């Protein structure tokens, strides 16, 4: 499904952040990526999405056999990639619902499907907002405008639910969430997840993984995945931190 091979990327001043990432994600899998601050987790998501601040030095990223790195940013999204960043951007003045509708219909146009009618879109929106226990105020607000950290993360998952991507890369979706919001967001992700889809979660804490059971856990450090394992790895990291990995080497 998503195949990342020897991905290397740097920022404008030439500093290489990703130094050869390899990751295979199959349908139905949940991958958790953990690692200390500054290890390259957020960079990985942005490079895959095509953020212009990063330069790909080498490697490939394929989604169902198509090279994402050769696509425009919007084409990557419309091909089934969804990236939720750690700090969702605020766009005052762009209405949440209009934005969602535009995004959904852009995807449908890309896939050769007709525009969704206003009525059908309203129903879809209501269904997903109910799933995430979001109130009507979200409809009237600007995209992430003036929202708390938790509200922004919930809004991101609403987008994910509506756009129905094949692979979702969620960067610290649990940050800024209180206990109830964490449960609601995690339930939403589980509900959206299916055997045909995959999710990559970046997180620092086990608490999110209590709700969303990972198939694999990876440790990213210094721009490389240095260790992979099952769900038990996350528990060990929570308990012992990251230094033991370096020491064991």
């Amino acid at each position, binding site marked *: 499904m998503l195949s990342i091979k020897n991905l290397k990327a740097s920022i404008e001043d030439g500093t290489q952040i990703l130094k050869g990432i390899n990751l295979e994600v199959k349908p139905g899998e949940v991958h958790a990526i953990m690692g200390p601050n500054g290890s390259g987790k957020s960079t990985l998501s942005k490079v895959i*999405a*095509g*953020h*212009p601040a990063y330069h790909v030095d080498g490697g490939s990223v394929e989604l169902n056999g198509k090279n994402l790195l050769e696509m*425009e*940013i*919007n084409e*990557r*999204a*419309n091909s089934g990639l969804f*990236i939720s*960043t750690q700090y*969702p*951007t605020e*766009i*005052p*003045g*762009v209405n949440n619902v*209009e*934005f969602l509708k*535009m*995004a959904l219909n*852009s*995807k449908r146009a*890309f896939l050769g499907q007709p525009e969704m009618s206003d009525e059908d879109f309203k129903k879809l929106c209501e269904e997903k907002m109910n799933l995430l226990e979001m109130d009507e105020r979200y409809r009237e607000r*600007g*995209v992430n405008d003036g929202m708390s950290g938790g509200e922004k993360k919930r809004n991101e998952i609403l*987008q994910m639910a509506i*756009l129905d991507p094949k692979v979702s890369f969620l960067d610290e979706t649990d940050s800024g969430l209180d206990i109830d919001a964490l449960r609601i967001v995690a339930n939403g992700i589980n509900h959206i997840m299916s055997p045909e889809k995959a999710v990559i979660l970046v997180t620092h804490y086990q608490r999110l993984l209590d709700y969303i059971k990972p198939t694999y856990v990876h440790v990213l450090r210094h721009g490389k995945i240095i260790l992979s394992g099952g769900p038990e790895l996350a528990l060990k990291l929570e308990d012992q931190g990251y230094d033991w990995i370096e020491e064991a080497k």
Partner: protein
Amino acid sequence: MNAEFIQNLPTAEQAIARLRELGMPKRNNELWSFFPVAKIPTPEFMGTNFAASPATSPAAPTAATATTAAPANQETDFAALLPIANNARPMIREIVAGAAEMAMLKCNNDFGHTVLDIGKGAKVSLEILDNKVTHDIAAERFDINVGENADVEIFFANPACDLPLRFRHFNIHEAAGSTVRFSSICKDTAIGRVSIECHLKGEGANFDYRSLHVLDGEASQHSRLTIYHEAPRTTSTQLARNLLSGSARVSYDGSVIVGYDCTGVNSSQLVNTILMSEDASVSVKPVLKIYHDDVECTHGNTVGELDAEQMFYLVSRGIPKKAAQEMLMRSFAQETFLPLPDSPAKKRLMAELGVR
């Protein structure tokens, strides 16, 4: 009717005499620093010989000017005098105290002069429509006296006007507790200038200015505001936003003057410009003259391109780049008027920006 306000307006003879004194606008006059003054045709009454002479050598005052009341003689803005000097017949209208009125103004000549005397506590919504243009230049002047606690909105959101040269001048006097909201959208394709002199004469008077220029091609639009805080606890807000493409040019010359003994004044000025092309340009000149300590006055100016992170966010959700740009431009534009209270002005301006 406020007789003093009406009497202080210049007559045609006084205006002509004053224009002869001032001479044609020149770039070294701070009121016209940014304006393409060479595009202004010399009015017949000024004479070609006179127009060629320096503005520092005014003609001798005529009998009319010698006896003119001080306000007419002190007028320094060419655009304020031009309609009157061109014999624009004043349309004088009184709106009585406590009245609620919605009106549309449309001048049917190249030169227009409107005088409004708005009574205490009146609530007025005034839309200004484009005038009928048959010549190379159009100039309108509006003298508006606002009574105590009156609430007035003045707005225009006209479709792109292609007349070669247009001036609009507003002379606004506000009494205690009154509010004037001035809002405009300009998509004109040629050269224009809006000048406003607002006198906040009574305690607690408020002036709110919002303008949006969406320009392309060779359009050249200029704004000049002077807000006089002449009483305590008066407030003013200026928000000017510009979306400029092609070789479009905008200038904003905004002055705030706070008088002696005007305690508790609050004034803000903010100009935000997005340049969509390399050849588009903006010039901003804020002026603050403050003669009292207990005041809060701010000014700011930003110039840039569309926000790169916002663009990335929209495009990363599958929206094509061009559509994302349009969404951001629309939101930038709409934000100008979002803080306005629900009113005919807000409805009209937002409709012009595609909000139904």
